């Protein structure tokens, strides 16, 4: 299996299943993720994509003009190039994906499906997987379903107008929680591991070679693979154009959403967090207006607003504990 940059280059040359017609915001990280998924699934296997209700769904699966999924301008000649995509209800994508895998396996078991096992990919927002959809998400993992669960984490319910999400870092402004609150993000990686996932990773497509590796490994996983994709939301976070990939990288470097990879039964690893010059969280916060009540930029320097030092310190403390916690999880 190729690694890193060579794999990224190889995937870039494959037929993409994600194309024109989507209405994602300019600067949205999801489009980058979808292109990577669209290319990685061009691997000689039929692809079925299940989408929970989310930005990614409403912006790429709009009849009749906005269905952005499918390889080529016309339906391909080979079933292995084809894509079946379904949106069911908000929180159900993992369960629906599991059903599709079971159906394919059962048909294969009696000789009714003779092709290679299909790629079955579930796509959820962080609300769809970790708030309203936590039941579906955990139980599909618990049953060890052979599906790849991708969860877009933009720390908000972006699709419905940037409401509070349990994945949000503390004190981020949300439409239902102005100024944010002290609750720390739900331990989505820990939950996935203890539920029994075979492969758990967190990575932003801002780290393109690593992202290619992880997507490829998730599709190859023989049990449940879970990939969390921290995804800067230009509309909800309110940052300057051109900062999407950089913010995705900063989320990792600060320790707030570090790149992480662990295979069941093997030591995990935390990646793209500099050990010696880890940037403070206010480098990350200051570039998003959802934290404008805490930190602002003066030139290129973050400045904590007077009286808001405790909140920023609390976020920094969370980032520190988060790294320590992920280190413990990696050692499991």
């Amino acid at each position, binding site marked *: 299996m190729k690694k890193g940059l060579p794999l990224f280059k190889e995937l870039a040359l494959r037929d993409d299943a994600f194309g024109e017609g989507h209405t994602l915001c300019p600067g949205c990280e999801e489009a980058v993720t979808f292109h990577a998924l669209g290319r990685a699934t061009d691997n000689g296997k*039929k692809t*079925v994509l*299940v989408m929970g209700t989310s930005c990614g*769904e*409403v912006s790429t*699966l*709009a*009849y*009749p003009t*906005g*269905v952005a*999924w*499918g390889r080529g301008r016309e*339906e*391909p*000649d*080979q*079933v*292995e190039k*084809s*894509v*079946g*995509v*379904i*949106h*069911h*209800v*908000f929180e*159900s994508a993992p*369960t*629906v*994906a*599991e*059903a*599709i895998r*079971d*159906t*394919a396996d*059962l*048909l294969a*078991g*009696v*000789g*009714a*499906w*003779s*092709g*290679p096992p*299909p790629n079955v990919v579930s796509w959820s927002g962080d609300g769809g997987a970790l708030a309203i959809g936590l*039941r*579906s998400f955990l*139980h599909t993992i618990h049953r060890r379903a052979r599906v790849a669960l991708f969860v877009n984490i933009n720390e908000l319910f972006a699709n419905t107008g940037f409401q509070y999400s349990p994945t949000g870092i503390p004190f981020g402004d949300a439409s239902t929680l102005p100024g944010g609150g002290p609750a720390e993000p739900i331990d989505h990686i820990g939950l996935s591991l203890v539920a029994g996932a075979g492969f758990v990773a967190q990575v932003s497509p801002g780290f393109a070679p690593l992202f290619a590796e992880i997507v490829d490994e998730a599709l190859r996983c023989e049990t449940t693979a879970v990939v969390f994709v921290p995804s800067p939301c230009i509309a909800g976070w309110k940052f300057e154009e051109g900062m999407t990939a950089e913010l995705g990288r900063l989320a990792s470097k600060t320790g707030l959403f570090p790149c992480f990879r662990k295979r069941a039964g093997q030591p995990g690893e935390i990646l793209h967090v500099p050990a010696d010059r880890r940037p403070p969280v206010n480098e990350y916060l200051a570039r998003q207006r959802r934290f404008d009540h805490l930190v602002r930029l003066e030139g290129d320097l973050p400045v904590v607003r007077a009286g808001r030092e405790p909140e920023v310190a609390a976020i920094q403390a969370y980032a520190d504990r988060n790294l320590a916690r992920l280190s413990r999880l990696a050692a499991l």
Partner: protein
Amino acid sequence: MESTARRLVPPYGATYDGSIDLDALRAAHRPRFLERTRKAVDGNTAAAIPFLQWWRAAIVAGFPITPATKWLEHLAAEVARGDARGKRVKLLESEHAVADYIAGVAAACRGLVVGTATSSVGLDHMTESIRSLGASGLGNVIVVDVCRATANYPLCIEGDPSDLLAHRDDGFIQVVCRGVQQIYDTLLQLPAIGMDPRVLTPTMPSYYGIKDSHRSGALVIEPDAEVNGFLDDALRTAEGTSPLVEDFLAAEGAAHPTPPGLLDGDTALGSCVTSDWFQGFKLAQKQRLSAAHRVIAEVATAFEARFGRPGLSPIELHGFDQRPEIALVCMGPDAGTAIHLLGRIRDQLGVRAGVAVVRLLTPFPTVDLAAALAGVHAVGVINNAHHHGRGHLTLDVEEAIAGRTAPVEAFFCGLGGADVSTTTWLAMARTTAEAAARGRAGRRWRLVHEGLEIGGEDLR
């Protein structure tokens, strides 16, 4: 993969013929019954047996809830015996997950039949997904509802159809059964109706909890070869049938296609639309549901020809050959008591009565019922579930006979699965006969229990 051929199904995408070899699944099926067999079974078992017999029912899913649990337990036990190659019972963590799961199976391969059984708040818990399924076009879904009162406060686990009636608008074809033979025979016919390309609507067979789910009776089980032959023949006959309604999505002049599945197709299901497009989708859903009336008649005729028992009838009529003066319209197992009492009603009350038992709840057989009630002087409608007004069934009956002068008395009885006793039936018949003599209903609604009118509301 073996040779596949792309077949365009505009505007749904493409199907890859040959990518799924359903003949292989058919060949893997191990028949449960090689010849016609008579067994004593309860209602839940009668509803489970077809899923063991259909080669298309490769996967069933479930989550236990009283009084439907035996359906799941029976299937799990049979499959666990190990002689069910090509079958799987999937246990999930909640009813909502079950509904999501069967949507996935049904969408993955539209040639399969996939089902579950639930009840009461279990059906309520499925609601979000069930309502989506109802609009999905996935006619290969069967949700068996074992009727039980919904809404705790107070909890009551006996059977009344408040769950079924609360889900009238979920988009399913809803059929009410009574007795094990009717349950079994109805199940055999429903996929032929729901999967017909003119209908493509999921189905919800139902029977009352406890009274029918747990009561045993003699069941004639048909051999698997006949059960599967009936369904295969029906689907083969229906394939490419001229559309009954205009499919606003299909190309002009195209026959009704079954859209591609996710595994064997290049397609998208469940897309977003603007409200402009939504109108067309909803119109098509309504038209497909309406088309079920005609398809039910075709399937029922074929069923009777093959098996020698009556096919699914939208309404059962009893005593209507005697030109009844009053009619009692009801559904569910307590109808049997009323039918048994027809002679006594005539003798004691001096009135000829007929009993109309509603089988097809959705889409409601308005035309058939109107024809049946054409000559009666008053109608008593028996409702077994809580309703804010005169009763779910009353509203449908009143619509069916709108413009007629026959008064309609609305009764509630058997709530929470209570027995509808002979004294209750006689009291309701007497009240209906009085309305016929008076030419108008006496009260807006009445609650009758053990022959006593224990509550009601006067007309305003």
